[in-house]
């Protein structure tokens, strides 16, 4: 089962390598990884998805929490949460599947190439990719999902 873990870490050189290194060191898989500074520039927020049973994910969060540069960790999959991922796809103009997209999805257009952007859950994007497979997309780029809990809880040092 896919789990989404979000964490806040010190925005310092080497912090990301500690997080990523932990996964290879302990034999965990990272499926996706998104990282960017937060509105507090001393902190970065990192969202990752991983496959594993409950026990493995509990170990992962505990080990992440142990890293000195990691300030807070949460397993978003533990409760209701919203997950969104961005995907960019480009097609030959001739094989562009017009019906699959709305006009507003188109982010660039030339005589030869049409590029679109789509936002959705990872599963929705997976489905879309299969749907347009026959149109032979030239390139597909995915961001990996971001997550936010659906309730009042926030991942913040202010709490």
């Amino acid at each position: 089962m896919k789990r989404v873990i979000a964490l806040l870490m010190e925005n310092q050189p080497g912090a990301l390598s500690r997080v990523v290194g932990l996964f290879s060191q302990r034999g965990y898989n990272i499926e996706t990884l998104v990282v960017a500074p937060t509105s507090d520039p001393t902190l970065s927020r990192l969202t990752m998805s991983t496959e594993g049973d409950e026990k493995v994910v509990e170990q992962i969060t505990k080990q992440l929490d142990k890293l000195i540069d990691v300030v807070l960790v949460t397993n978003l999959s533990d409760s209701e949460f919203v997950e969104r991922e961005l995907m960019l796809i480009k097609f030959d103009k001739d094989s562009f599947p017009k019906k699959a997209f709305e006009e507003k999805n188109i982010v660039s257009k030339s005589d030869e190439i049409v590029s679109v952007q789509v936002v959705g859950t990872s599963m929705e994007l997976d489905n879309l990719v299969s749907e347009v497979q026959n149109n032979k997309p030239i390139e597909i780029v995915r961001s990996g999902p971001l997550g936010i809990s659906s309730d009042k809880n926030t991942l913040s040092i202010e709490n």
Partner: protein
Amino acid sequence: MDKSNKSGAEALIHSLHLEGVELMFGYPGGAALHIYDAIFNQNYVDHILVRHEQGAVHAADGYARATGKPGVALVTSGPGATNAITGLATAYMDSTPIVVISGQVKSGLIGTDSFQETDMIGVSRPIVKHSFLVQSAEDIPEIVKKAFHIATTGRPGPVVIDIPKDFTDPEYKFEFNYPSEVNMRSYNPPKKGDTSRIKEAVDLIEQSKKPVIYSGGGVIQNDASEELTALAKLLNFPVTNTLMGLGAFPGSDPQFMGMLGMHGTYQANMAMHNADLIIAVGARFDDRITNDPKQFALGAKKIHIDVDAASVSKIIHADIPIVGSAKECLAALIKEINSRDLQLNNSAIEEWNQIISDWRDNHGLNHSMLELGPQNGKILPQQVVQSLYKETEGQAFITSDVGQHQMFAAQYYHFDKPRQWINSGGLGTMGFGLPSAMGVQLAYPDATVACVTGEGSIQMCIQELSTCLQYGLPIKIININNAALGMVRQWQDMQYGGRHSSSTYENSLPDFVALAESYGHIGIKVTKFEELESAMKECISLKDRLVFLDVDVDPNEHVYPMLEAGNAMDHMWLGKEEKTWK
């Protein structure tokens, strides 16, 4: 507080002084030379020049294990840093508080493959508790403060401070301010401990009929031996210690079952396997203990006290997880017990203790092997350890290397006090024994410090014999010489049809007596059983000199008991032909 202007190098040494550091171990080189010059110009911190950086880190580690205070090592960049890696990994696996300072090439040269450049932060990342790459000279005091705080609190561990050479430049001075406290929003190790589960733990204790207290290195690290012993005495529960935990409970106490695990005693392993309650304190259920976790102590409830939340339920599910310092949690347990009208199953526990006692009588270790005399004309390695125990009256600090001699020392020397037994349990680092003994001897100049080793391990850091002469360290090296890599050979005997692939030396061993003498020490050779005890007496009595006691032992001896791989803890080999299962 000293607010005078200092260079980065001076600030570093002064910060160490303010952290209470009295001595450090190291080896100079280009990127560390500003620091070495600052060491030359002060009298607060002594520097011990080792012969290889691995020795520096092991010595700092040995110092830390014996004293409980953080050990410090200083190395240069590149090969100095990479040579420190084995020492760091050793300290990481055994959670010992050390701070390793490495020189780095100038900040402007980082990433250019400059001379003696290694990405120390990257190379050491998986084997440190934390590391710092210094970004400016002014940051040095705060980083030192944080490094010592991190190394010594929570689950202790090694911390690296990598300092580019330009930040120790003597020409650049700044106002020195040493922070009085550390504030890290991302690091708050549990101090008090999560004691909410204490009542539930005591409920389980009251129900138990076949309890075992299983304690590890965490009890020693956290100076909680007194509390552990008090708890065991209060309850009259049998106690076993891990390899790292020996000495946490008095080794010669009748309640002590000996070490458990791979080469644990019959009674300790049987007690674990048959227990209905395991109280684990500062131990982590590693594979050398549990054997197959799926078959581990299936009838037992587990109370697990550990300061590291990630250790709890990592391998074995904890019915009662208690995350907190061993000392605090044990004190809370004792308090809860004393506050109740405790109803133990006393008759069942009596019966259980009797069963354990019978196990010990029938299959326990023979601690009187000296009385057996020579076996087939040879000295047994166990007899060497027993002779050492007798001659030192059980009071010596014992360091060891890794292999059969380590297991024999752990099995046959009764450690009555914590911090008396110093070995590389987690990483299993050959070469640890002699340099760690240097750290112990420097911390306790008047104590008897013996390094129990073998002819394989001792050659991995033998160069430190020179350091021992320079600083007058009267270590007793007890070389249990079976002319083979004994533990490798044992496995080859048991699992590889006796094919001794690369585990013998084909008569290439040095004359250890001559070797010791050439380093300026005393060497004594023992080949006959009749000479053993008098030679040991002489060795220990030479208080002011390093003595290398080289004892030829039976190369065919194996370490038993030995757990059968991939099975439960009651599956043990008890001898070459004797096993506990059919």
